């Protein structure tokens, strides 16, 4: 058994990792929808979902079930290939983009197979990421064109144009970081930002503030999120490119969208905010206990909050979860090894979550662009600025050299 | 280890297919794609050579080819749009007059 594992570790470990990652991501996606609805609801002074489970926590589950069991009608005269291919492409690419993202610093060995947090560690991971995002257009374009409906077609057209336009900015805005790091590997980019002495002061965000601005805006456009969600502008084209899609196919688009949001947030974190690095100097030892400091109160609060419910949740589930979290928090305090192992991922996910929140926040705040505004903004403002950023950065670097 | 000749033969096959497409497709856009296909075949040969000779020049050439292809696509598609707009047809056999 063991030798079998050791023999085929190079196959098994990645598969397992993939499985875990996919599970996590899908769950996060699901609950991201919940978070989004809640946040926006509160921004708009509503309650948001609160029927299914406490705080509507089971809403995503219900949605998933609904998606699965809904009828999947096939519109007339659709181009079957494109129509079926589109959602798969989109979802596949979105998930693949996560494969090259490193989530933590550690290397660990399973059955004599050395691996690390994150699936693939390619030394051109950034390029790969961009390659994947570049292909992302097709899903939407095909969906729009394949489903033989003018709304879809318009949505598809818009999104392909929009994505081509903002991809340039997306790529160019990163060049600054690349110049500083001198490497395509995300891992190395993060490492290069590390400095135990000075904490967050050496993150790329400070030299590359312009680059970050361009990057984030372009990224939002790439993911077709508000305020760049013209491809699916419900007030103009019913639902844009996925008007004609229902049930699981629609779900795929949905998942893909949230996944790409996560991917982009990860990317932003890694490129500009020092990935898994702690913002504090290493010397501040107490900061190591932040995770537990967050977990324990949270767990306790869950127990306290859960008691109210006069049912299964209130009696068993929530208290269980709460105690579990508290225990984990305690464990972290007690076992330094575990604590250290958690540090990286903790910071990473903290940052990613922040970005995701900003996404949602924007959606709740900003109005949608008009199409021509979108284009002129992308071409006439964003692109020049990012180019200027590249020039500036290279000049500074040269000046530093001499 | 894959022998270089495999890559070259593959590129030859792709090139031939590109030629066939170039001759036998009627749709301007598809013909254009055929040209791109041929370019890709050539790129493959370039990379194969540069790898087997241990010189990176070939890959630089590939980059140039890609850039030129991009420029070509921009202009070519512009022309195609214009043609389609004026002739109401993408069939090259129907677009056989210099003046409308």
């Amino acid at each position, binding site marked *: 058994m063991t030798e079998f594992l050791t023999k085929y570790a190079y196959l098994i470990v990645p598969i397992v990792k993939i499985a875990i990652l996919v599970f996590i991501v899908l769950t996060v996606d699901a609950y991201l929808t919940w978070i989004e609805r809640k946040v926006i609801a509160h921004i708009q002074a509503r309650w948001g979902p609160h029927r299914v489970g406490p705080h509507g926590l089971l809403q995503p589950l219900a949605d998933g079930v609904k998606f699965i069991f809904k009828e999947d009608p096939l519109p007339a005269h659709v*181009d079957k*290939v494109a129509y079926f291919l589109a959602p798969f492409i989109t979802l596949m690419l979105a998930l693949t983009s996560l494969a090259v993202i490193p989530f933590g610093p550690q290397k660990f060995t399973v059955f004599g197979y050395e691996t690390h947090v994150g699936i693939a560690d390619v*030394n*051109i991971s950034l*390029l790969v990421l961009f*390659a994947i*995002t*570049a292909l992302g*257009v097709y899903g939407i*374009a095909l969906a729009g064109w394949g489903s033989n409906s003018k709304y879809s077609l318009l949505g598809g057209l818009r999104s*392909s*144009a929009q994505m*081509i336009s903002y*991809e340039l900015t997306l790529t160019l805005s990163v060049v600054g970081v690349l110049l500083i790091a001198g490497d395509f590997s995300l891992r190395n980019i993060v490492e290069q930002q590390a400095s135990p002495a000075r904490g967050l002061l050496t993150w790329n965000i400070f030299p590359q503030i312009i680059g970050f601005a361009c990057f984030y805006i372009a990224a939002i456009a790439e993911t077709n999120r508000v305020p760049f969600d013209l491809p699916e502008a419900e007030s103009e084209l019913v639902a844009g490119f996925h008007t004609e899609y229902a049930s699981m196919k629609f779900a795929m688009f949905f998942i893909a969208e949230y996944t790409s949001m996560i991917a982009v947030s990860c990317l932003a974190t890694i490129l500009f905010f020092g990935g898994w690095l702690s913002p504090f100097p290493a010397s501040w030892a107490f900061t190591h206990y932040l995770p537990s400091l967050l977990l324990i109160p949270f767990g306790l609060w869950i127990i306290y909050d859960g008691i109210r419910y006069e049912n299964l949740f209130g009696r068993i589930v929530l208290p269980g979860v709460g105690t579990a979290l508290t225990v984990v928090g305690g464990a972290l305090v007690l076992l330094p090894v575990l604590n250290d192992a958690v540090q990286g991922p903790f910071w990473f996910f903290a940052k990613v979550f922040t970005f995701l929140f900003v996404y949602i926040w924007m959606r709740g705040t900003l109005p949608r662009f008009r199409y021509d505004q979108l284009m002129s903004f992308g071409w006439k403002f964003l692109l020049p600025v990012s180019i200027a950023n590249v020039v500036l950065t290279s000049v500074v670097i040269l000046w530093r050299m001499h | *280890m*894959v022998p270089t*000749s495999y*890559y070259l*033969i*593959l590129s*030859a*096959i*792709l090139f*031939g*297919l*590109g030629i*066939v*497409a170039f*001759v036998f*497709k*009627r749709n301007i856009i*598809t013909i254009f*794609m055929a040209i*791109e*296909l041929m370019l*890709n075949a050539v790129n*493959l040969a370039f*990379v*194969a050579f540069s*790898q087997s000779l241990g010189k*990176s*020049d070939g*890959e630089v050439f*590939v*980059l*140039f080819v*890609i*850039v030129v292809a991009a*420029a070509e*696509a*921009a*202009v070519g*598609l*512009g*022309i*195609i*749009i*214009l043609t389609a707009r004026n002739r109401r047809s993408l069939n090259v*056999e129907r677009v*056989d007059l210099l003046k409308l």
Partner: protein
Amino acid sequence: MSGSLIIFFVLALLAVFAAISLIVQRHPIHSALSLIVVMIALAGLYLLMGAEFVAAVQIIVYGGAIMVLFVFVIMLLNAEEEERTNFSKLATYAGIPLALAVAGFIAAAIASSSGSLPAPESSGALTSTKTLSNLLFSDFVYPFELTSFLILVAILGAIVLAQRET
């Protein structure tokens, strides 16, 4: 039958079949999709050969920009299935043999010449992007600048061509 060989054959077959489907597909957008597949397969082959940067650029530029442009134009012009007209007798009769002749020529030339070539480095040793960029900005700097100029011209040309004369 080493792993790389298997990968090669998979990708090669994928490319060839996609190319064939480019020919047989009647709808431009299907041809475009086939072509994209070819390109991705080629990118895989580049990776296999260790030309990582080229592979990435292949996908980003070809797959992500050029082909998107094609698809975009196809959608914009709302191209329908191509009609199989045969006005050109020449192409109808002389086309196949000539194409085969050229292909055969190339194949024969390769077969006769490439026997001596050494096998390429497997994906173990990648041409680092640094060497590539060094070449690009030292030996090939003039062509490089020239291409940038070419692109500028192309942009202008495209704009002039595609804009509706009012």
